[in-house]
C-alpha cells in the first residue's frame, strides 16, 4: 500500500492554472498555479488577506474567478459547479450548524441534501460520528457542544457524502492549542480512513507541520511550495538568535568577520548557520561587543516566511471580525 505523503502527481485532484480574482481594483489572487494529488493533506498558508479564502472559495464554486482555470476532481469549477459541489466537502470558516438540532440530526440533514442512499444512511452517519468521536453526544443538541466539538461535527458532516476533497477554511481559528492539535488528529484519521484529499487554509504557521505539502501565499501569489521539511531547508540550517546591547556593531562584525547576513527582529539579531554547535564558540571569541543572550533552534516555517517575504508573519492583532467569530463560536453557532 502506497504512502500518502508522496502525492500521486499523475492524477491531480485539484489543478489550478493562472488563477486571478480581482474585486474592483483589489487584486485578491494574482496568478496562482497549483496541483494537489489524491490523498494529500495540502496546507494553504499565509497572513490574513493573502488570498487564501478567495482561492478556496473559487475551488468550492462559491466565487467565480476573474480569469484562469480551476479543476476539482477533474471537473472545471466554471463549467459544472454542481458536479464539483457533489464531490467536495466543506468546513466553513464560520460555524454553520443548527444549534437546535442534535448532532445526528445535523448529519441527517446533510445526508438528505447530498442524496445518500437510504439503506446506508444511518450506518454512514454512525461511522462519521465515530471517526470524530462524537458517538456519545450524537443525541444532544449542538447548542450544548463546545467549540472543538462543533468543529469535529462539521468535519464529520464534511466527509459524510464520500467527497473526493475536503476543503477546510481556517478550521482551527479561535480554538485553543490543545483542541487544535486534536482537530489535526481527527483530520489525519479522516484521511487514513476515507481515502480523501484534504485542502485547508490556516494562518498558524506551526500547523503547517501537519500537512504533507504546503503553499505559502502572500499578497495573492504563491511564494513557496513544497513539503514542510523542504521549505525549512531553504532557510539553510539552524537559526541563531543573539541579544546584545549594541546590535549595529554586532551586525557589522558578523557581516565582516563571519561573512553571514544577520536580520534584525525586535532588537535581536538572527543568523542562519549550517551548524550551530561549531558556530557558538566562534561567536563568543570573534565579537567584541558583549552578548547578553544567545539561542539556537531548528528552523520553523515562520523563518521560511520571514526569509521569503522579508517580514514576520503577523500573528495578527485580532480584528473585530475575528473577535466576533470567536464570540460566535463560543456563544452562538446557531443558537437562537
Amino acid at each position: 500500500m502506497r504512502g500518502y505523503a508522496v502525492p500521486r502527481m499523475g492524477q491531480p485532484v485539484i489543478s489550478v492554472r493562472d488563477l486571478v480574482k480581482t474585486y474592483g481594483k483589489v487584486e485578491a489572487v494574482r496568478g496562482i498555479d497549483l496541483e494537489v494529488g489524491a490523498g494529500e493533506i495540502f496546507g494553504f498558508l499565509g497572513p490574513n488577506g493573502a488570498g487564501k479564502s478567495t482561492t478556496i472559495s473559487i475551488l468550492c464554486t462559491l466565487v467565480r474567478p476573474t480569469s484562469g482555470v480551476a479543476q476539482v476532481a477533474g471537473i472545471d469549477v466554471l463549467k459544472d459547479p454542481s458536479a464539483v459541489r457533489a464531490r467536495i466537502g466543506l468546513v466553513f470558516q464560520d460555524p454553520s450548524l443548527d444549534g437546535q438540532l442534535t448532532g445526528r440530526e445535523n448529519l441527517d440533514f446533510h445526508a438528505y441534501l447530498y442524496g445518500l442512499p437510504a439503506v446506508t444512511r444511518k450506518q454512514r452517519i454512525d461511522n462519521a460520528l465515530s471517526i470524530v468521536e462524537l458517538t456519545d453526544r450524537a443525541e444532544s443538541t449542538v447548542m450544548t457542544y463546545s467549540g472543538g466539538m462543533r468543529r469535529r461535527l462539521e468535519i464529520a458532516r464534511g466527509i459524510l457524502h464520500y467527497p473526493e476533497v475536503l476543503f477546510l477554511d481556517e478550521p482551527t481559528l479561535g480554538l485553543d492549542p490543545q483542541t487544535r492539535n486534536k482537530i489535526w488528529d481527527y483530520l489525519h484519521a479522516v484521511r487514513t480512513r476515507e481515502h480523501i484529499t484534504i485542502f485547508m487554509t490556516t494562518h498558524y504557521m506551526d500547523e503547517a507541520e501537519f500537512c504533507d505539502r504546503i503553499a505559502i501565499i502572500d499578497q495573492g501569489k504563491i511564494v513557496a511550495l513544497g513539503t514542510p521539511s523542504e521549505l525549512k531547508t531553504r532557510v539553510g540550517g539552524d537559526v541563531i538568535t543573539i541579544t546584545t546591547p549594541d546590535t549595529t556593531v554586532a551586525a557589522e562584525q558578523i557581516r565582516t568577520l563571519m561573512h553571514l547576513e544577520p536580520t534584525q527582529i525586535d532588537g535581536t539579531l538572527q543568523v542562519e548557520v549550517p551548524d550551530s554547535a561549531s558556530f557558538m564558540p566562534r561567536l563568543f571569541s570573534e565579537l567584541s561587543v558583549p552578548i547578553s543572550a544567545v539561542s539556537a533552534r531548528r528552523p520553523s516555517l515562520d523563518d521560511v516566511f520571514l526569509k521569503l517575504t522579508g517580514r514576520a508573519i503577523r500573528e495578527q492583532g485580532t480584528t473585530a471580525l475575528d473577535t466576533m467569530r470567536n464570540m460566535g463560536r463560543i456563544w452562538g453557532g446557531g443558537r437562537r
Partner: protein
Amino acid sequence: MTEQVQVLAVPSRPQARAVNVRGATLRAIYIIWKRDLIRYWRDRMRVVASLAQPVLFLFVFGSGLSSSLRGSTGGFGGSGSSLQYVQFIFPGIIGMSVLFTSIFGAMSIVWDREFGFLKEVLVAPIHRSAVAIGKTLGGATQAMFQGIVILILAPIVGVKLSFLGVVELIPMIFLFAFALSALGVAVAARMRTMQGFQMVMNFLMMPMFFLAGALFPLGGNLPAWLSVLTRFDPASYGIDALRRTVLTASGVPARTLDRLGLSIFGQPLSVWPEVAVLLAFGALMLSLAVYGFRQRD
C-alpha cells in the same frame, strides 16, 4: 504519523450522485421541511407563548368590545342575529395566528443566513427551488398547527364546531398558511440582515393584519379608500373563507355572513372563489421565492 498509511476501507465513492434530479429535489424539500418541524416541536415554549396574543385579542379585546357593540336586539350581525362580536373575530384570530406564524417562520431564513446555516443548504448540489419550497412548506405547516391550536378555544367563545367542520377547516388553514409563507419566503430570500425585519413587521405584517377584516366586517360601510385597500390584501380572502366556514358550521345564516363578509362590486364572495384567490397568490409568491433564491448568492 508514519509514511505508510494503511487504507482500512475504501468507500464506494461514486454514489447515486445527481442521477435523479427530481428525486434529489424532493428529498431536499422533505428534509428542509422536517428541520423546521423539529425546531418547532423542540421550542414548545414558543408554541405556548404564541398563544398569548390570540388569547388577549379574544378575551380582552373581543369580550370588551362585545358588550359595547351589542345592538338593540342583542346581536353583532344585525337585527335578529345572535352573533356575538367575540364569535365574529374568532376566525379572524385564527387568521392572525396563521399570518404571524407564517411570516415569522419565513423570517427564519434570515436567521439562518446570519448564523451561517443557510450556507450549508446553498452549497449543496440541489436545485435552489428546493430551498424555497421546503421553507414555504415548513413555515406553512407550523402556521397550520398554530391555527389549529386556536380552534381549542372555540367552545369558550361559544363557537360550535363539529368534527367534520374541523376536518374541513384544516386544508383551508393550510392553504392560507401556504400562501402567506410563500410571501414571507419571497421577502426573506431578498433580505440580507435582521435589520430589515422591523420593516417587514411594520410595513407588511401589521397592515396585512389590520386590512384583512380580522377585527371588523369588510362588508360594512367602509370608506371607499379603505374598502379598496382591504380587497388588495390577500389575507382578507383567507380570513373571510375561514369565517364563512367556521360560522356556517356553528349555525350562523348565510344572509348574515354575506352582509358582514367580503364582497367585490357589491357581490358577496363565497368560499371557493376565495380559495382560488389564495391558490393563485400562493403560486405567484412561491415562484417569486424560487426566483429570489436563484438570483442570490
